[in-house]
């Protein structure tokens, strides 16, 4: 699905705000919507939700295993639970609950990993959620959605209510510009074509989408045509778009604010590596390979080579146009 990106220069969106606004709007019309959190009313941006629906905000306290199990029980009682907690604790501490109680049980729980990636900068690797994509990709029956901006975050919330199914949504805190056009184009299991291009493809997710678009603009000035795919859905994976990128362009660069072991890049590599001769194009995977040192989110994005200029360099390298 193609949309026209309107790329603004300044990062403006904390996706948690759009998440909360959309959730409240939908909750006014649909009594089934409830929120569950682990003492994270403020950090999950649920204060307004609690004011308006005090009974429908279930704060289990600092108890993530119970939190996810409670979510599964609420779903089985006919409700639509949005289980909200900082990404690292939601996915790390409760991984077995996500596996057994949500994915395997097929309880329609919407897991909302707040402030994912390295959004907690200086708080360090304990508070970074960069393993979530790897861990959760291994679970069949669980959708993984990584919205790239506020509008896509709203669309992810709407989709979850319209068609509840076991889902993990990364709800970003690190500010991003608007990268989607008028038509947000969030379709289950599909990448969004953020920019057409024919020389190479950049597949980016979440915070990296705007950086990929900047890189593509810079490459275009040098006569290199880069296709940019916004990987808003990691699971189910858009294998067709990946195969098309491999067949139609000469290289693929993947950028993710996540560990490269098992993340989006690994997913793309697994598809490309199994294609026919001639379609197995060179890949460059940008992401984390070690625990982060101390630094702000922006510092760490630069440290790990996840800025637009790094994507551009990787693209040139992959095309042998350094």
């Amino acid at each position, binding site marked *: 699905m193609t949309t026209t990106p309107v790329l603004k220069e300044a990062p403006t969106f904390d996706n948690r705000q759009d998440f909360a606004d959309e959730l409240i709007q939908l909750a006014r019309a649909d009594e089934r919507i409830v929120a569950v959190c682990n003492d994270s009313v403020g950090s999950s941006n649920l204060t307004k939700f609690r004011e308006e629906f005090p009974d*429908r905000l279930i704060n289990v306290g600092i108890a993530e295993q119970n939190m996810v199990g409670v979510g599964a*029980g609420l779903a089985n009682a006919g409700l639509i639970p949005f289980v909200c907690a900082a990404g690292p604790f939601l996915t790390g501490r409760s991984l077995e609950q996500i596996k057994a*109680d949500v994915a*395997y049980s097929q309880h329609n729980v919407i897991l909302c990993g707040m402030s994912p990636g390295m959004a907690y900068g200086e708080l360090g690797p304990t508070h970074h959620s960069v393993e979530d994509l790897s861990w959760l990709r291994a679970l069949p029956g669980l959708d993984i959605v990584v919205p790239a901006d506020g509008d896509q975050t709203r669309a992810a919330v709407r989709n979850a209510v319209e068609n509840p199914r076991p889902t993990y949504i990364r709800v970003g805190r690190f500010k991003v510009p608007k990268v989607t056009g008028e038509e947000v184009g969030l379709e289950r299991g599909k990448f969004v074509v953020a920019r057409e291009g024919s020389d190479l493809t950049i597949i980016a997710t979440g915070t990296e989408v705007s950086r990929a678009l900047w890189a593509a603009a810079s490459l275009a000035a040098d006569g290199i045509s880069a296709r940019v795919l916004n990987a808003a859905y990691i699971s189910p994976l858009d294998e067709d778009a990946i195969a098309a990128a491999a067949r139609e362009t000469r290289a693929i660069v993947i950028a993710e604010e996540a560990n490269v072991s098992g993340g989006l890049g690994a997913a793309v590599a697994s598809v490309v590596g199994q294609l026919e001769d001639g379609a197995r194009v060179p890949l460059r995977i940008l992401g984390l390979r070690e625990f982060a040192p101390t630094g702000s989110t922006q510092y760490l994005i630069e440290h790990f080579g996840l800025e637009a200029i790094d994507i551009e360099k990787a693209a040139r390298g992959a095309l042998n146009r350094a």
Partner: protein
Amino acid sequence: MLTADASQAAEWRSLREELLAGDASFRAGKLHERAQATRRSILEMISTAGQGHIGGDFSVTDILTVLFDAVLNVDPEDPRKDGRDQFVLSKGHCAAALYSTLAHCGFFPASELTTFMEPLSALNGHPNRVKVPGVETNTGPLGHGLPVAVGAAIGSKLRGNGANVYVVLGDGEMQEGSNWEALMSASHHKLDNLHVIVDRNRLQQGARTEDTNGLDPLDARLAAFGLEVRVIDGHDYNELIDAFAPSTTGSPVAVIANTTKGKGVSFIEDRVEWHHKVPSKEQTIQAFQELS
């Protein structure tokens, strides 16, 4: 997903009416017959499959029989009915006991029990709600059922549909921290529609609970977490029925059901090695006789 056995369900419905009308000794006699039939099914399933958890199956059988035959508001022919009571078997390794109980209520044909743990059977070694009607959530890893039951009880309160939730845990399972997280939530939310039943057979896979990571005083611990505690003989049918009566304090109810692992078969009872040992042919015959 397996489908209901309508004639078995009809039989079960009339049995429930009989139980309601009868006195205590009639009820106990009838429920004992049902439980022994369930134990015989379990024995056959495990003996045929060559695997299973016979000790815990037999300790929990009476609890399951009373819940399904005399307590739960469920409809085997409409297993996901909105507003139904929910039952969660947190000690999912005792799936055989749950499957034979469900089959005897007509949730699915009893003939299906012969497929227990066969390739592609709906009846996995641990229960799967996607395939087996009457299973509310997939269990197996310990410490999962109670949080889910707490969520269901909160959901029932929010929806105001009067549904009650019953969850059975193994006693060894109380060593899992997630259970204590969930107990805190249960009393915080005053879930008087929740019964937390501990199958207190005092044995876990490797040894006695008290020699492993002691649980006593379990009653005081549960009371300290805000539950209304009822300590009963988990093989006494009328005590079980009474224990499943509604909360009298507005708090969630904890039922410590003192049981014997392997109940009903002399050489299996209270022996740690029978956690998941499989009886030989001769032992199966002897066990069958003892259960008849």
